[in-house]
């Protein structure tokens, strides 16, 4: 059943990714088709996750591929909060194509089926994996918003004549939303790390490289928020900083299969 739901979700996301490309060329109908594709795909993926949760023994996303599946769902869900607004449709160009690729990788890795029982306890996994993945989804969205900021800024700097025909969200809006997303995601990461560290302490497991990079990631994003809300740093430098921070998120995401998943 879970496998049957994967394909409609992937097709809907794929359709949305293509429609976003069309929207970038000729705004209008493609944008609306893309939004419906995202909505439909996300609903089907939600059903897929529901089936996985119902059929699995314990936490169903404890494998790297399973966590990737959950991660895609969180990213697309977070995107849907703003993505349905016409001005933010172009953000879909930064979110949906990677989401399709990651979702397909999750399927190849067996993350869309019913997972094998995990060596970790379910409560720990729900809190630790859930919170960390939610935070990473937020950072991913924030990076997409920052990338869109830099693209829009470049268009303004180049004085592109299409700037008013092919409208993106304003620089100020992108800047603000990116910071707010991080302000929401960082507490989730803090709690996720705290749960992980408590477990680490109780089991006496060693601190590995991924944990260290995760902690560095926390420091980087915390410094971002301090710079933002204490010193008022914003604009291009802020966007570049967010993208630099996101490379750490990528390192952690790529490192997780090697150190944390069976």
């Amino acid at each position, binding site marked *: 059943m879970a496998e049957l739901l994967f394909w409609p979700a992937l097709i809907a996301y794929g359709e949305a990714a293509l429609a976003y490309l069309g929207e970038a060329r000729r705004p209008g109908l493609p944008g609306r088709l893309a939004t419906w594709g995202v909505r439909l795909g996300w609903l089907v993926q939600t059903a897929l996750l529901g089936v996985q949760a119902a059929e699995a023994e314990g936490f169903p996303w404890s494998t790297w591929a399973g966590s990737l599946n959950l991660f895609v769902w969180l990213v697309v869900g977070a995107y849907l909060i703003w993505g349905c607004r016409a001005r933010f449709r172009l953000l879909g160009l930064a979110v949906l194509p990677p989401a399709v690729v990651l979702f397909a990788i999750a399927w190849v890795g067996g993350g869309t089926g019913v997972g094998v029982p995990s060596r970790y306890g379910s409560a720990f996994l729900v809190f630790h994996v859930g919170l960390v993945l939610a935070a990473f989804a937020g950072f991913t969205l924030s990076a997409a918003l920052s990338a869109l900021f830099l693209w829009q800024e470049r268009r303004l700097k180049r004085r592109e004549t299409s700037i008013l*025909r092919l409208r993106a969200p304003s620089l100020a809006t992108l800047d603000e939303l990116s910071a707010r997303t991080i302000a929401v995601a960082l507490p989730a990461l803090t709690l996720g790390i705290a749960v992980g560290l408590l477990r680490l302490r109780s089991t006496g497991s060693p601190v590995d490289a991924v944990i260290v990079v995760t902690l560095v990631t926390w420091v980087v994003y915390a410094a971002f928020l301090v710079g933002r809300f204490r010193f008022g740093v914003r604009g291009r430098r802020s966007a570049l900083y967010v993208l630099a921070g996101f490379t750490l998120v990528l390192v952690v995401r790529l490192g997780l299969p090697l150190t944390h998943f069976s």
Partner: protein
Amino acid sequence: MTLVLVGISHHRTPIEVRETVALDRDGAGTLAARLAGDGAEAICLSTCNRTELYLVGRSEADAEAALLEISSLPESELVPALYRLRDEAATLHLFRVAAGLDSLVPGEGEILGQVRAAHEAGAPGPFLDRLFRHALRAGRKVRAQTAIGESPASVSSAAAALAEQVFGELRGRRILLIGAGKVGELAARNLLSRGAEISFVANRGANRGAELARRFGAEPLPLDGVVDRLLTADVVVSSTSAPGFVLRREDVEHVVRARRGRSLLLIDLAVPRDLDPAIHELEGCFLYDVDDLEAVVGETLAGRRREAGRAEAIVASDAERFREWQASLDVVPAIASLRARAEEIRAAELRKAEGRLGRLTEAERSAVEAVTAQIVNKLLHLPTVRLKQAAAAADGVVYAEAVRHLFGLGEEER
């Protein structure tokens, strides 16, 4: 029922001719009321680009005479400039006008309000009322379903739209206006209409600058006080007649550091330019001069023209629906006569039958009335529908005549 349109517009007539027949709202209303006597209908649409008379129950000659009366031009000059349209062509024309497709700038939104005002001030009867309501609906539909009206069509509105691309919501954004000329004021007013506030007005002549600042509720500044205010301003609009740069890169450079990445949009509407082009290279600074803005407007106008194709399809479809309704008017008298004749026969036959059936109770009489009325309605339903369909297909008059002949309608009056 024939619709007549006689008008003059920017397409083939210069302003010197148009202005002789231009009317304000009251004047247009008065003219329409005068033409609408004796059961006729009239609406006068008069804007800076056109004056058009829509008439039902009057001829083109009546419209021409009315326009000649208000114009100071001789007949030989005015009449050749007028265009005349009838029925379908006139309907389509009005629908295109309401959609902004006949405007100087395709898709401009002001015309919709002007058509509405003409409708309200005019003297419409059932036909023109319906025509204008449908035209207004088509205009709204075009604006809702296409992007024809979304892009700015002037340099000043492009500047305001650019500010929205940088800052989003302009409410509370602070504008620094350099120069107290008309061009800068127009751009500032455009920003003001979108929620921004004019915070500072800098001008070489203190009196004129102070006067403009007072009108906007802004702080007046001397030109050398501009740099100090750059830290708090979000948009700078400059349009002085100064021979050199009013703001140089060095002036803005140290302010940019203090702004910590906050964007600064600079609009240079002056020729020669007021703002050093090198300012654009600074982080967070976006400088657009007249050429840049005109290039943006050119692109958006091209976009409007592309959207115009979709808009034309919407307008044509709505105009066609109106034409079908108008055509159905040809068969309405025939349908009404047919139904009246059937009702007459039904009532007469009932009266005859009453004697044979003896005395009926009230309930029985009602039942018989209902059954016979239902039979008549069912019999006439299909011919009525077919007649209307035939009217829509332009055969209405032939069918109406056939019905009159077959059922002997109107023969008793001959």
